[in-house]
């Protein structure tokens, strides 16, 4: 069980590091938004799986599952709003 937990946590950390590298390397703000969404989706999935592996079907695990769904739904909504704001801002700056 520790091996599976270790692999899932390593995936979570790798997702966060990849997102951070992308945040540093990508040029535009719209491209950088992808990094945040990637961390929310990939990291959220790995974290929820790790919580279920480490804790079983406890209340904390169910809360973590709800958290992941919230990250997915809220992440989609906020990314849309941010993208719209960024495009509006870019057009205003031209």
């Amino acid at each position, binding site marked *: *069980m*520790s091996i599976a*937990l*270790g692999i899932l*946590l*390593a995936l*979570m*950390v790798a997702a*966060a*590091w990849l*997102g*951070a590298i992308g*945040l*540093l390397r990508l040029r535009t*703000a*719209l491209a*950088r*938004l992808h*990094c*945040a*969404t990637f*961390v*929310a989706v990939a*990291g*959220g999935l790995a*974290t929820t799986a790790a*919580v279920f592996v*480490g*804790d079983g079907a*406890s*209340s*904390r695990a169910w*809360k*973590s599952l*709800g*958290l992941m769904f*919230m*990250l997915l739904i*809220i*992440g989609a*909504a*906020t*990314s849309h*709003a*941010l993208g*719209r*704001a*960024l495009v*509006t*801002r*870019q057009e205003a700056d031209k």
Partner: protein
Amino acid sequence: MTSEATLWTAAALALVPPLGVGVLLCCRRSEPMRLAAMQFIVATGTLFLVALSFVLDEASSIDLALTCAFLGLPATLLFALFLERWL
């Protein structure tokens, strides 16, 4: 400390540098970049708080992560509105 707690501690510590990158970009770049960095901080910070609830071995502390994710929505929308109209 059990091996599982050690793994969660290592994961929580490994999430600190990406969080630092987000904070650094929030402080130093233009407003659109700050907005993207803030979104990144919300996602990474939520994962960090989940890991921290296992490090502290306090089941109720996962509510901090839930609160962070939940409050990230109005905060980001408010920032986006300001960026779109006034900043």
